[in-house]
């Protein structure tokens, strides 16, 4: 199985994100591998361990996104590729999907592309499907379990998480999947892995390298980013001598305030 796992370099979920001079700032909090993508990397590695093959981590972003690739390499990916070009700045999902699809085509003979369900920063959650559509491959999103994978018969069966039920789907390879965290428990990078990653050469592919003569214009723009209005909540502490008294008082207050 020739697997590509797409990863993004994002701000830590514990970061306090603020706006400074109209720009997003997350203070001193380090950037990390998008937490959802750890599950995608883990699943790709498990498939390789079971079926053989190769796992390539692919990231689109500025030079600093190499750090996300290094973490993927430390977890056990065989190779990392950074797709980076000044012309990609401000790309929306429509353009991002075009760039990633072009990079995957350059890798050649890919059987499967794995994504995390979304990135924790922009939280768009559509890139996997859009890449699949561009490649003409089925896209299976929100995968909670791969129930069967037949590399020779070229089919995959998964359970995907819909709101109402788990949907069991079979699709042909090549395929794009996006995974939810229930699918596995990501491994920690090993000492050897970290050493290997720190020495790894990560090639940078520009728009010309992936055969995009022209980067199309983004369809959407986000002219304004701002902090949500501060909601002034003043907590009213429910007092009482016993838990029963407090419970009764809480019920009284919820009815008085017409919450219930």
């Amino acid at each position, binding site marked *: 199985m020739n697997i590509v796992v797409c990863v993004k370099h994002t701000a830590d979920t514990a970061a306090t994100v603020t706006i400074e001079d109209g720009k997003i700032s997350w203070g001193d909090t380090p950037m990390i591998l998008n937490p959802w993508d750890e599950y995608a990397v883990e699943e790709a590695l498990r498939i390789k361990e079971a079926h053989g093959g190769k796992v390539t981590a692919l990231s689109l972003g500025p030079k600093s996104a190499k750090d996300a690739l290094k973490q993927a390499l430390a977890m056990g990916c065989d190779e990392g590729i950074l797709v980076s070009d000044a012309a990609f700045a401000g790309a929306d999902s429509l353009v991002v999907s075009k760039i990633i699809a072009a990079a995957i085509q350059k890798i050649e003979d890919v059987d499967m592309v794995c994504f995390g369900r979304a990135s924790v920063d922009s939280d768009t959650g559509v890139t996997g499907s859009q890449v699949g559509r561009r490649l003409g491959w089925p896209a299976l999103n929100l995968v909670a379990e791969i129930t069967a994978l037949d590399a020779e018969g070229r089919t995959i069966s998964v359970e995907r998480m819909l*709101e109402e039920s788990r949907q069991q789907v079979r699709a042909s390879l090549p395929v794009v999947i996006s995974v939810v965290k229930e699918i596995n428990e990501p491994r920690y990078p090993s000492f050897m892995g970290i050493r290997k990653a720190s020495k790894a050469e990560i090639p940078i592919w520009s728009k010309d390298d992936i055969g995009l003569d022209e980067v199309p214009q983004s369809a959407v723009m986000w002219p304004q980013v701002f902090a949500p209005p501060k909601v002034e909540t003043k907590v009213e502490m429910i007092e009482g001598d016993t838990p029963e008294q407090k419970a009764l008082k809480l019920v009284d207050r919820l009815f008085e305030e017409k919450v219930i």
Partner: protein
Amino acid sequence: MANKVFVYVDHFEGRVVPASFEALGVARQMVETVGGGVVAVVLGQGVDDVVQKAVAFGADEVHKGDAAVLKDFRGEAYATVLSAIVAEAEVLLFPTSGRTRELAGLVAVDLETGIIPDVIDYEFDDGSVLAMRPIYAGKLLTKVVCRERRPQILTLRSRAFPKPEPDSSRSAEIIDVDVDLADVKTEVTGYGESQSGVSLTDAAIIVSGGRGVSNNPSLEPPAEISDEAEQEIWRAQQGFKLIRELAKVLGAAVGASRAAVDANYVPYDNQVGQTGKVVSPDLYIAAGISGAIQHLAGMRTSKTIVAINKDADAPIFKLARFGLVGDLFDVLPPLTQALKERLGK
């Protein structure tokens, strides 16, 4: 046709996702500005009931794709049919669900246009929709616009917009869509266990438990459970029993913090927070949840938050409207009982 607002009506086996009605309400509001009419799209098999609901909730015209090949949702197949219908639309609205996020993305590629997911508010700006959506799990908001391309594709977050009143006397033109699909590469082979009860994102009330639900040393696990980790899970299950009983009295959905899910107390489906579901109910009761920033990100827009925690310094109290310092094992049973009596259940 170019000034029409289309709404994709999302349903699962004929059960309409409530945010679809909210989307029809938004569409009615939008056509006051853009002119034209509200067009609903319903895909599936045996969807006449869904079509009727779409009309009652505001559609002037319904495109109905009713075919065996559409029996189960498959993004690939649905997108091909939908893209052909909406190619000339001014705006295409979806309620936000796992299905529609995928479908909207696929249609956007087919029509080479933009997609704006998880919209919570909008205004018109120079003839285009300027849509507000949260990013960084609600830590920031952004206004997004798709100026040049059409349709403008938006998915609307559940419960962000009011649900219109249905009017069963409304009528609409129903257009049967020719469904001609060849070479679909996916096949739905079945369904796992259904999620019981109220779905988190649609729920008006949510009762959530955190790590604190296992924190009752006075509960003695049965002798056959000797493993420490299993004992903890057993304790947590007793705690979640109390959460579920309270939820049942309130007709509420059950949520959980990431800590509770990571400790295997409850499945991931229940997780509220940045890496789980983002919810916005009228009432959110957090029991035994300290309030990590990732959890707060997933529920901060709840209208009223009630926090029950042993630790008076827990961060959850900073966001709460009502705070109760106490052990959930002592507080929840009398709380459930009192509500039962007041609500006459």
